[in-house]
Structures are given as C-alpha cells and as structure tokens.
C-alpha cells in the first residue's frame, strides 16, 4: 500500500522543463533573493514578481491555480511575523486588548505584515516551480555540479529517496492503530493525554526504525564499494538556449527590482 503523496514533479516537455537544471536552480535562488529583498509596500514590484511567476507557470504548462494554492502552505509559517503588525511605529489602526495587554496595530505594521505574507507566498511558488519542472535526481546532479558540499547533497539525495518510504511506514502504523481503535461505549476513546502519549510513542518508534534502517542501507552501500563519496554522472553540457533564457529571466528580475526600489 502506498501513500498518495503527490509527487512534486509534473512530467512535461516545455521549455521550462528542458532548461538546464543548474540554470533553473540559480534562477530560482535569484527569484527568491529578489523577492525577499524587495522593500515592504512595493506593490508594483510584487505584481511584477507574481506575473513573472505566472508566466513561468504557464510556459511550463502547469495548472496555475495548483501551484499558487500549494504555495499557500507557507502562510502558517509567515504568521510568525504577526508581531510585526504590532511593533512597528506609525499611525495606529486598531487596538487589541488581551487582559492587561494592549496591542496597537499600526498602518506601516500592516503594510509590512502583508508584504511578508506576499513574499513568502511568492518564494514558495518559485520553489514549487523548480520541483515541478525538474526531476529530483536531475536536481541532485545539478546541486553537485554547482559545487554544493558533498555531504549536504548526499543528505538531500537520501531524503528524497526515503521520504516516501517513511511516509508509507507512517501510514501503515497509523492504519494499525486505527484497526485497534474500537469504540464500544461512551467510555471509549481514551483521554487526550493518553492519545497524545501513544502518538508520541509512535513517532519515537518511527525514528528508531529509521535509524536502524539507515544502518542496513549503509551496510548495503559498503557492500557495493561505497567509500564516502556519492558519485554521480556529469550533467549534460550547457546549451546556448539555456544561457539566453537565463539572462532574459535575470533581466526581468532586475527590472522588477528597480521598480521596487
């Protein structure tokens, strides 16, 4: 039984798919960098970035709503910036009273907070685009080619390989628990502390198993001659088309950046 974890990669033959993975990786990083550094409240720049992302989504043949919706996964994390709403100096907008505390939201604070939300959303869209148009193994080869540290690349490669295995295992543990979660009367179900403890135990269990599995995998690698370095084939040569598209994208980004500042 396999968990239906949506595989991030969407097969396709668009120009975006065929663009060299190294170029794509660097462009994604540039996009995220420009997005992060754009000042708060630069709405035209944000519009430009959104349109740029949308353009790439359409060029890649991906359903735009799918990518944009998936990027919303960043929002709960961006909520950590909620404090910005209340700590920025400026024209007060509304006040929240929590017991003895009075929190005053300011207009600059609101602008900053909304900017952070938008920027997170845009950055994650960039990452999703990269994952959707580049098969994971190709990405790993590209990372190595860009001189990312060997150890880091190995860790990322194994994570990609075994994430699904772990997810499957977690699903089966969950099923086993469901199968023994019988309800025969009003007293059934157990207290929330007990249920939380069982879940904690399951997570610990999964962790222990992963560690033991990693030992077995390591032995298998040793048995096939592994001596500390994950060797990969070299990536194909860079084509002129890759260079052109890359420069075009960078030019557009620069334009948008100028707009922002």
């Amino acid at each position: 039984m396999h968990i239906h974890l949506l595989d991030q990669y969407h097969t396709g033959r668009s120009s975006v798919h065929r663009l060299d993975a190294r170029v794509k990786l660097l462009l994604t990083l540039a996009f995220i960098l420009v997005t992060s550094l754009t000042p708060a409240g630069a709405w035209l720049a944000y519009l430009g970035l959104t349109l740029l992302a949308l353009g790439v989504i359409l060029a890649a043949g991906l359903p735009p709503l799918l990518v944009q919706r998936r990027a919303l996964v960043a929002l709960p994390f961006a909520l950590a910036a909620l404090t910005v709403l209340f700590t920025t100096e400026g024209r007060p907008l509304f006040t929240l009273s929590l017991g003895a505390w009075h929190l005053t939201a300011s207009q600059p604070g609101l602008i900053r907070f909304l900017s952070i939300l938008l920027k997170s959303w845009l950055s994650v869209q960039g990452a999703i685009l990269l994952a959707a148009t580049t098969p994971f193994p190709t990405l790993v080869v590209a990372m190595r080619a860009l001189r990312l540290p060997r150890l880091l690349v190995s860790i990322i490669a194994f994570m990609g390989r075994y994430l699904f295995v772990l997810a499957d295992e977690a699903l089966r543990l969950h099923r086993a628990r469901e199968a023994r979660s019988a309800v025969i009367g009003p007293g059934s179900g157990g207290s929330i502390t007990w249920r939380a403890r069982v879940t904690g135990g399951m997570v610990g269990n999964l962790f222990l198993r992963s560690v033991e599995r990693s030992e077995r995998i390591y032995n298998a690698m040793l048995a096939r001659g592994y001596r500390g370095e994950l060797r990969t084939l070299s990536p194909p040569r860079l084509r002129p088309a890759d260079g052109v598209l890359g420069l075009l994208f960078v030019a557009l980004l620069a334009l948008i950046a100028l707009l922002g500042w």
Partner: protein
Amino acid sequence: MEYAIELENVRFAYHDGRPALRGVNLRIAPGEKVALVGPNGAGKSTLLLHLNGILAGQGRVRILGQEVNGANLGWIRAQVGLVFQDPDDQLFSPTVFEDVAFGPLHMGLPEAEVRERVAWALAQVGMDVFADRISHHLSQGEKKRVAIATVLAMKPEVLALDEPTAGLDPRARRGLLRLLARLPQTMLVATHDMRLVAELFPRTVVLDAGQVVADGPTGHLLADEALLEAHGLESPYLSPERREVLLKMS
C-alpha cells in the same frame, strides 16, 4: 442465517485507477475457518482491509450482520481483529505490554480488566514473560505472536490474518499453527503456506486478479493440479516422482 463475514459484489480500485477487487462475493459462517489463497497481487490484503473499514470501495461488506460503513467503524473494529502481514506495522508502542493494552484501553475498559486481558492474551500466545520488552527488538516469530496478542486482547469475534506464517522458522510456525487451531473465532487467513491450508482450514477460497475463482472444500481444491497451476499456487504434497528421487539420493 447471520453470516460472520459477508461480502457482496465488493469492488475497489486504487488511487491511480488500478482495479484491485472486481466484484468479490464471499460468505463465511460464524466459527468457520477459511483460507484465502492466490498469487501476489491478487488482492488478498486489500480484501482483508475491507473487513474493518480501513479501505472502502463499492459493494457491501457485512460483519455479523452489520454493514461496515463510516458510522459504526468503532463497533466493527471491536469485532474484527486484523493482523497485518508485517508485524512491525502492528507493533507501534514502546513496549509489548503497551501494545497489547492499546486495544482494551481505547475501548475504555477499567484498568484491572485491561491488565487481566493483557495477561490472558500474552499467555494465549505464549509470550507472558515478554511483557516489558521493547517491541521491535524481538525476533520475527516473537513479533508475530505479540501482534496476534494485541488483537486477541480485544476479544474479537472474527480474526483476519495476513500471511501469518511468512518468515517463520518451522518451530515458530508449528507453534502458530497450534495456537490458531485452539482459537474459537471465525477466521479468514490470507496465506501462501499451502501446508498450513491443508492442516488447518476445511474451506479454501482462491482469489486471482481481484476475483474469486474457486471456493470450496480444501481437499477438493488441493487435488486440482490445473487450478493450482493456473493461479500461482502449488500443492503441499510432494509428487511421487520427486519423492522417489529424494529417497534414491540418500
């Protein structure tokens, strides 16, 4: 009469569209012990997962007369004890005791009764001294027995086991056989172990490509060489020619 397990035209397809069960009809009376055999990928595990509502497709599944649907899963899971193929999937608690106690605790039974049931279930499988051990440091055979104990502690009416003897050495296998022979529950056991089928189950159901291709007395089915061959099975008996060759070798 009320059947213990009743499957009526059960169909199921996976997320990617692959059909797993294509109209399965099966009726098992209370107390009956039935073997479910078939090649890998026939849908045996999928079928078992329908019995306690973990998977649900089209068609009807009834346990002890009650239809399995979203509303009564809590009750169904107290009646159907499902033992998975890989005991590691079944044992998710830190210690053996906690694993066996999970079912009764979830049902809300008083602590004294929970302890009693755990002791009884572990004694039934011969693992009473293992109560404080860490679940996943046990041997395969021990894990399988604990997995069965986790389900017995809930005192279900129906037992569904997925490949109970897979990976067991002959001694552990015989122990399991004796245990299963003792238990009074209705049983549906998916297995490749044809000797187990011959020794324990008066009735055998053959599943292939999501459909029931044969359902009848075990002796009958095991004598049908063509049927066994066609559905990836084999006879538990040595052919007379092979026996002669073996004897000549010594």
